[in-house]
């Protein structure tokens, strides 16, 4: 372990956290100790962790403020649902269907990310934020008009209404405009969600710690200096943006296949902001922080249900308190002192040996 670089050690700690999280809850689930309220949230937690980690790649590592991350999630969600419906009777095992659907969701979102990224990444700062915001809204409105059905002849797509799909009598409408996808068969499982979290973490952490990752960070820190060193700015920015979009698409497919229905309205501006809140609270550029923030902030509103009407008020107060405390010098000093004490004790113990 000692020979591992700091970044590699960090990566392994992240995998460890995910695995411990998985083991603890899996054991509690199998023992029936977990309340249904909590067990119902395991897959959403994993989804939001992936969303937060992938957005952190754009916001933290690449340094671009993106406000349309939920748009990629919805592209992944709906393409994943279409894929899952198409292969429902073709592919036997449900885990394989889920894996294929997630893959298609990720690919579609990556394509969307490329198309959006080419014009958008030429912009900087506020302009980029505004255009990504618009992108999320456009995706939502396009999906509101999208009708997809499947029958024995294959896929039918219409932008007008369900009647104009012209399907045979046995056809199934998969996506029904603003009503979204209905009658999805639930195939997401907790294990598959954790595996997806690990895969996404593996890809993103390796990207961040690679040569390309250093290039991306160099562009974030000083674009002109990076350019003068011969770094292709567009290429590396696109790399971060598209990988992030693909991860969001995978998360979207996982999310959609956990519920029997998803609607385009779900993936609106508010959801994008929610994910941005995870990233900011967890620490911009800090993957572990955003993982933990996503998990805690997903569970928090449910834990506050006993406060009824004041629930969201308390939620907001908690957010503000966390923001203040993490940026407070005194709080940081106190944490540092605790760290020092622990270290000193460790050192003493080692000296004893």
């Amino acid at each position, binding site marked *: 372990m000692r020979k591992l670089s700091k970044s590699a050690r960090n990566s392994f700690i992240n995998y460890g956290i995910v695995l411990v999280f998985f083991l603890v809850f899996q054991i509690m689930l199998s023992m029936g100790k977990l309340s249904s309220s909590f067990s119902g949230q395991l897959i959403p937690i994993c989804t939001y962790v992936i969303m937060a980690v992938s957005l952190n790649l754009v916001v933290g590592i690449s340094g671009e403020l993106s406000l349309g991350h939920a748009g990629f999630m919805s592209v992944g969600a709906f393409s994943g649902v279409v894929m899952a419906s198409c292969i429902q009777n073709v592919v036997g095992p449900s885990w394989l269907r889920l894996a294929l659907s997630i893959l298609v969701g990720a690919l579609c979102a990556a394509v969307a990310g490329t198309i959006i990224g080419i014009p958008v990444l030429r912009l900087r700062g506020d302009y980029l934020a505004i255009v990504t915001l618009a992108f999320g809204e456009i995706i939502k*409105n396009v999906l509101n008009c999208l009708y997809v059905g499947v029958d024995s002849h294959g896929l039918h797509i219409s932008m007008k209404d369900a009647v104009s799909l012209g399907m045979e009598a046995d056809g199934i409408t998969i996506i029904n405009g603003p009503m979204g996808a209905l009658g999805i068969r639930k195939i997401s499982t907790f294990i598959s969600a954790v595996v997806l979290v690990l895969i996404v973490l593996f890809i993103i952490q390796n990207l961040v710690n690679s040569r390309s990752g250093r290039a991306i960070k160099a562009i974030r820190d000083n674009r002109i200096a990076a350019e003068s060193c011969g770094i292709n700015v567009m290429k590396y920015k696109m790399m971060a943006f598209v990988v992030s979009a693909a991860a969001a698409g995978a998360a979207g497919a996982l999310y959609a296949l956990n519920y029997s229905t998803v*609607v385009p309205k779900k993936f609106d501006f508010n959801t994008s902001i929610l994910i941005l809140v995870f990233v900011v609270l967890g620490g911009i550029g800090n993957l572990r922080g955003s993982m933990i923030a996503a998990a805690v902030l997903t569970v928090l509103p449910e834990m506050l249900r006993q406060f009824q009407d004041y629930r969201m008020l308390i939620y907001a107060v908690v957010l503000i308190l966390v923001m203040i405390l993490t940026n407070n010098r005194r709080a940081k000093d106190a944490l540092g002192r605790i760290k020092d004490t622990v270290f000193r004790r460790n050192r003493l113990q080692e000296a004893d040996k």
Partner: protein
Amino acid sequence: MKKKLLAMLLATAMVCSVTACGGDSAGTADNSADAGETTETTDDAATTDDAAAADDGAADDAAADATGSGSLTGTLKLGVIGPLTGAAALYGNAVDSGSAIAVEEINAISSDFQIELNAQDDEHDAEKSVNAYNNLKDWGAQAIIGCVTTTPCVAVASEANADRMFMLTPSASATDVTKGKDNVYQLCFSDPNQGSASAQYISDNGLAEKVAVIYNNSDAYSTGIYQTFQTAAESLGMDVVSVTTFTDDTANDFSVQLTEAQNAGADLIFLPIYYTPASLIMQQAASMSYDVKFFGVDGMDGILSLEGFDTSLAEGVMLLTPFSADATDDKTVSFVGKYQAANGEIPSQFAADGYDCAYAMYAALTYYADKNGGFNVDGVSYQDLCEILISVFSDPSFSVDGITGEGMTWTAAGEVNKAPKAVVIKDGAYAGL
């Protein structure tokens, strides 16, 4: 090494705190209740097939319960799921208050049978709604009134179907809510019912030569009604000259849609939308001096109590609605009085639906108790209660007289049978047609 140790320590501490929170979320009381619930379930599992027989046995054992044959005893834990906050909060709160009034009345009837009500917020979101449902399950809910809105209801209904929890939705009107789920029943008309009934009504009464439709294509309710209206209109040979749409984000200017309808020469506009955008459409049509008839559905109910709306604009508007607060029968008058006293506003159709839902549950349990010589709901698992309620609701001889309809019966598919009432707005009030 030390740093690694520290990191590991922090990581485990973090995980532990998350787990601890997980325990907390259920609360200690809930946990013990949960434990009780599970033991009950296992007890019941042994006698699932003859749950009724076992209950009869229990009634015989307990002298208190054997007071009269056919009496309903115990405390029913009833969950309500609806949007209590957010954009659709109006509907969820109305259902919540309506059902609370009904529960108060039922609890006053006899101290032997009580209903405990627990309303959980779903923010009109499928994910939050499933969370709310799971929360109610932890609380020990035996049956659910909900969900109020369509999309969350579809998500919760499939969970409830897998768990075998009975659901009676006051207002989720899409067919997908009940499709393929034998444990989900609707108290409101389904969308196809409304769409085709509207088309039928317009065509039967020769209300219009040319019809225009303006609907909200970002809303499941509106699109659902439009689709069935369109199908019915085609088969009736109705001349639909203009179909235009808007979304929640563009619901503040309808001049384009109205101009198109006017140019197409429509003399009736069908509005399968909620009352807030509908009021704007009427205002703008009046300012364009476009004289046209409007026909609405139950979402239009409430337009007369809208603040700042000139009710003379709604003169002659026709709508299909199961409930009108101006009705003069005793039940409605008493309900409207109580609702106004409690909430300071005139109840909407949603409040009436919530009221009727609680009464329908009560009626179903009474019906079952009558048939089986008494029934104690205490400790009956939700799975057992679900089968009992399904057997009652699918029974054609079971009917409920409520304020949203007399003699409501249900099909085995979960749809309600009641007569749609068409009303016209005359002198700022509903009048029968």
